[in-house]
């Protein structure tokens, strides 16, 4: 028995050595591992693994590191980490600006996905508030009361994102004169826990939802339609229905950026170009997220599936 195990062991070594040989394709670039950060939401895990697998195909050495969305900038600045695949304009802008200002972190361009964020309600609420999705329906006192709780009554309760996300909802409520109180959830997880709770009971809820995410796929509902966002709306009080206040419109679509350590383009120029070339759109991503979170596939399966179906695209990113 010990003979077989030894030979298997050697066999394993040989296979590994072969894999190492294949990796030599880009030997002129550093063979140190490129560290990509993984956060705690599915979409980002997919984007990152997709990039990682593509880079592996190009012969690069890849390492995935679990890191906090915001704390990761400390690592990106010092070069302990190298690539972060999803930095949302809407939630990460401040931290990203602070980091790029040091010159040690670089914005590697958009991922092609656009973050959609808006007030959202489950479809069953339309019965109590027939004017929806038009935002003006929310001004109706009866409609606002339908969304109220003991603490906010007679005003409606709108569950906003964590304060760290910004979003100007307090200003929006004031500018549009909506009879609503903004309650801030502490985290993303708390936000969806409340939605799950209300949805199970078919109870009233109005909250901040963003996409790409599994929630719009799992729960039936709609986005409130506010006056469409323009830059003037946020900067110029005169714009819009309220002549004295800004923010009398909906939320902007935000880019989702790729960011990386500034030293990357010298250490791994080819990989840098590949990351730069990476693009994917909302629909593709939404489908993949749904496959993982609702259909029970693993991230690796979904990524492998996409790579088989889109071989031409990713080969283009790595110049093959």
């Amino acid at each position: 028995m010990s003979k077989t195990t030894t030979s298997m062991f050697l066999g394993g070594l040989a296979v590994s050595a072969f894999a190492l040989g294949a990796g030599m394709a880009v030997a002129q670039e550093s063979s140190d591992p490129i560290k990509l950060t993984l956060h705690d939401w599915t979409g980002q895990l997919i984007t990152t693994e997709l990039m990682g697998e593509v880079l592996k195909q190009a012969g690069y050495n890849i390492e995935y590191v679990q890191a906090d969305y915001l704390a990761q900038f400390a690592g990106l600045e010092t070069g302990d980490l190298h690539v972060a695949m999803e930095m949302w304009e809407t939630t990460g802008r401040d931290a990203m600006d602070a980091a790029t200002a040091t010159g040690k972190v670089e914005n590697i361009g958009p991922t092609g996905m656009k973050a959609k964020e808006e007030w959202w309600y489950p479809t069953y609420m339309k019965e109590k508030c027939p004017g929806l999705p038009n935002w003006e329906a929310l001004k109706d006192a009866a409609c606002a009361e339908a969304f109220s709780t003991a603490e906010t009554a007679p005003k409606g309760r709108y569950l906003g994102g964590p304060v760290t996300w910004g979003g100007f909802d307090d200003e929006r409520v004031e500018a549009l004169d909506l009879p609503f109180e903004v309650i801030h959830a502490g985290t993303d997880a708390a936000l969806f826990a409340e939605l799950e709770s209300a949805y199970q009971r078919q109870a009233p809820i109005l909250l901040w939802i963003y996409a790409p995410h599994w929630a719009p796929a799992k729960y039936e509902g709609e986005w409130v339609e506010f006056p469409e966002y323009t830059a003037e709306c946020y900067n110029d009080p005169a714009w819009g229905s309220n002549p004295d206040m800004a923010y009398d419109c909906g939320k902007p679509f935000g880019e989702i950026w790729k960011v990386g350590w500034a030293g990357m383009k010298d250490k791994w120029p080819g990989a840098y170009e590949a990351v730069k070339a990476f693009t994917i759109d909302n629909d593709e991503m939404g489908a993949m997220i749904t496959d993982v979170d609702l259909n029970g596939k693993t991230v690796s399966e979904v990524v492998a599936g996409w790579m088989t179906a889109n071989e031409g695209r990713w080969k283009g990113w790595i110049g093959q």
Partner: protein
Amino acid sequence: MQASAIRNGIALPRWSGWAIALFCFVLLWKFGAEQLPWAFEYPRKAMIPAARWIGDFTKWLLNEATFGLFTFQEFTRFIAAVIDFPYRIALSLLSTGFLQGEGSAAVQITPPLSWIAVIVTFTLLGLHAGGMRLAALVAACLGFVALFGQWQSAMVTLASILVAVPLGVAGGAALGVLAWRSPAFERAIRPVLDLMQTIPVFAYLVPILFLFGFGPTAAVVATLIYAMPPMTRVTQLALSRVPGELTDLGRMVGCSRRQMLWRVMVPASMPSLMVGVNQVIMLSLNMVIIASMIGAGGLGFDVLAALRRLDFGAGLEAGLAIVALAVALDRLSQAFAARRTGAAPTAGNPVQRHPYLAGALATIVIAGLAGLAVPAVQTYPEALELSTGTFWSEVVAWINVNFFDAIEAVKNAVLLNLLIPFKRFLLDLPWLGVAGLLAFAGWRLGGWQLAVLAGVLAFLIAATGQWEKAMITVYLCGISVLFAMLIGVPVGILAAERERLWTVVRVVIDTLQTLPSFVYLMPAVMLFRVGDFTAMVAVVAYAVAPAIRYTVLGLQHVDPKLIEAGRAMGCTPNQILLRIKLKLALPEIMLGLNQTVMFALSMLVITALVGTRDLGQEVYIALTKADPGRGLVAGLAVAFIAIITDRLNQAGARAARARLGLGDAQA
């Protein structure tokens, strides 16, 4: 009312000071708003720009500070490398195997220890230290981890714990011994310990990441900062409570200082010291969530990821795996401490002399070789994994659908009648009056030094613009501590005399302390919505542990001869409890209260995640804005609250003891 206060003052001079102080306070509060608006809202112009100063200082520390030959950052990176070495070894052994190269190009030279080898080794350790029962417990804990498919992540977590805990215990005990030897050192270290334990980790996370590099090492450092202080405190207390007769005996037989410490003091205070070790293990495991945010991975990451998709079952499984690790490690360490070290057998060959070691090594080798041929021996087969699947989500859903209205009614009653009025009351108070009252309390309880300390710290909170958030913090933590003590002390009293109950309670509080609060926080959000009530539930659940633990410790520590004497004099059981036991246990119970406050404050980071508007949220915002100055200012305000409470609490206990004629005999 005014007249009666004065009359009382003449009759009872000890109260008159308090009466006058309170009267002035109420006067300022009710009528000062017009004349002295700045006493209510600290003027913006006079704000101390502490956030900018601290921000500049951290920048300087990170980029420019130097010792001449090397920079500060190079120094900390060196420390990181020193910590990284044992960590890599532990990780290679348990999780990755020994590798050549890095990243995806790495080649495995040897596989990690197989799951069977790890379980058998730990079981043998249990058998060696505590017999069959402990062995069975350890095997069950690790078996649970494997059975529920948490093995891989658990080993990553275990590796960092195996590095952090010994460092924390050794470092904490060393500081404790120094503090016990030198009162000057004790005075110097106490505020530092308070800062270490109460400044929320998020406040200094970013500087730590710069200094120690992004990854598991920084996580170990952060864990050490947080988990070490209880060890120091307990060591110092335990050593100072060794009975005088023992030290006298030591002196008589001619012990040197070193012998006195290691042969007399440490063995005599072992039970108390083990409470410290227990705390280090528990707090280290408590940090795994935050550690996972900065690259440590492991079970903490699984918990976070599971709860982000609202998969309560998966979150609970990963969370309970953390608890299982905690219980196994804790019980092992307790057993090793309690074990009488008899003479080691010297006869026979090495295998006969060290049967457990030999058994473990044999298992490791055999399982390692067998694992090369049979994969199931090397890694726990996926087909045999269990999962609760959607069961827990369904349980929560069922409660939610059927009982939400009842829960909501109770919650609203507590919220509207207790929490919100108390919050409004505190927010209404003028900062000047509160600072003055605290200073007065300090003066009455502990003299002018304490008065200056309490007054200045309260002033600094206001002067850095944190007053309102600090009051919300006080309100949330105050109510939670009250509930925690109301639950904890009676449970402790019950458990102290009932061995069986104590075993059960211990498991419960260990679970509460190590199960990441996220696991029950998200279901709590579903049932109670975001906000203060949910936060309070989480804080009480976590802070009740020290309230129980220290009460039990204190009661079990009471000299049985004194209880016997009480019984001989005809005391009823109630009298024995109230007049003898609780009084003698007061130092530990006060330490318990102190720790309950510290634990409650340390939960602020978590409560910010369910939408409270306290200092914890400020720290969290600062983290997202990458502004270490702002975060540390808020973090320091938390620490100031802790220090004020702690000092007043201790001075009050001292004064009470002196009045009751207990004196500081034990101290």
